[in-house]
């Protein structure tokens, strides 16, 4: 799996959300997408998941250009946005069965039951999604990814709602995904958490790429660049 982003920019009306981004993701990478609010992180995630189309430049997955018609490519892309992408009126099992059928994955009810068990939602499997807490909805999103097995997994600030057990669950899954040759791109503000598992960090500011380095142990360059974005007084040891 290889994702190539060439000269990517996206404008909303008169404002540039992303300006001339060039990136290259290899299999097995876990990319931390960092930056202040409004830096363009969510826009980049939406472009990568083909929910938005670039104003200039292009994104290619395994040398196939991502454009409007590429529905085949989409089955390899997953977007985990906690609290979203589920029908409140359906039960957990119905939601999973529905999305499985859309991705034309053949999963038996037992497999769905078993996946719900691994994410610890077994005894809610017949409840409506509306009755779940946001943390549990995020676990349901993880269950969905477990079933759909995306190659490129995009995450939009999952840490905000997960409890300790949930975080371990998520990070275990991300590790397994990377071992199977998948790519993980996570936009988050929980810097200390993501730095423990990411293989590379990217910092965006006002739509431009200002930092892109693989992780190394004494990471002074990262600390220098990222210091201005930390809340005052917070010091962390990477």
């Amino acid at each position, binding site marked *: 799996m290889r994702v190539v982003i060439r000269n990517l920019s996206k404008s909303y009306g008169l404002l540039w959300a992303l300006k001339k981004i060039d990136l290259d993701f290899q299999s097995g990478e876990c990319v931390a997408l960092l930056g202040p609010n409004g830096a363009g992180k969510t826009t980049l995630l939406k472009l990568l998941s*083909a929910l938005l189309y670039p104003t200039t430049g292009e994104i290619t997955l395994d040398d196939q250009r991502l454009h409007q018609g590429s*529905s*085949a490519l989409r089955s390899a892309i997953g*977007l985990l946005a906690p609290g*979203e*992408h589920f*029908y409140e*009126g*359906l039960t957990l099992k119905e939601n999973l069965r529905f*999305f499985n059928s859309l991705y034309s994955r053949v999963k038996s009810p037992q497999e769905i039951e078993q996946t719900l068990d691994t994410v610890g939602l077994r005894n809610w499997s017949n409840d409506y999604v509306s009755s779940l807490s946001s943390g549990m909805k995020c676990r349901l999103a993880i269950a969905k990814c477990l079933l759909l097995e995306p190659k490129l997994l995009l995450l939009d600030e999952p840490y905000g709602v997960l409890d300790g057990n949930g975080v371990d669950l998520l990070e275990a899954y991300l590790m397994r995904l990377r071992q199977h040759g998948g790519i993980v791109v996570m936009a988050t503000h929980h810097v200390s958490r993501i730095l423990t598992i990411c293989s590379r960090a990217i910092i965006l500011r006002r739509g431009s790429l200002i930092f892109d380095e693989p992780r190394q142990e004494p990471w002074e360059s990262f600390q220098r660049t990222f210091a201005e974005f930390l809340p005052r007084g917070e010091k962390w040891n990477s």
Partner: protein
Amino acid sequence: MELLKQTLWVLWKDLLLELRRRESILAMFFFGTLLLFVFHFAFEIPAEKAAEMAPGLLWLAFLFTGTLGLTQLFQAERENHCLDALLLSPMDRASLYLAKVFFNLFLMLLIELVVFPLFWVLFNLAFWNLLPSLFLVAFLGTIGFCVLGTLFSAVTLKARARELLLPLILFPLMIPVILATVRGMEIILRTGKFEEAFSWLRLLIGFDVIFFTVGFLIFEWVIEA
């Protein structure tokens, strides 16, 4: 084949949600009957003219009820960004269109099945034997309404003043359906013979076929814009 399977799944999802919440079906049903009463008070229809005015009033009630249904059509997709979830998936966008057309058609036919006889009772009309053929004309008209209405429901999905904009765009384009359905029903009521209305029905079927194909092809670009 894949298209049909996905359509059925989306339809299953919509019907399940509707069965549980029953918000659209009840709202549309009571709105339809409410309109009948309002017409009764507004028009003071003398007994002998009731037959002549019945098709017009009935179809007007279905038009407004259908518009109510159309504004609610993508409501489930608006919650939790579920539309993004569908667009994320490799599903064929046209199957979403098919499912929504059938869903809205199903709702409207259900309403018509009840409101038709109710109208007959309220305005104590005779011609009970003509009801099936009248219902067939209304069926063709409802198909035309759903085919075009679903597309415009998607067109105005992210527009401001969505509920006002949808009828404003849809009704002028629905004029052939309105004329054909009402005139067709009127002829049947007057002459009692179904064959008389064939010219209007051909127009109606032409409308349905043309705009079903156009909607089927264009829907993908509209929903992904």
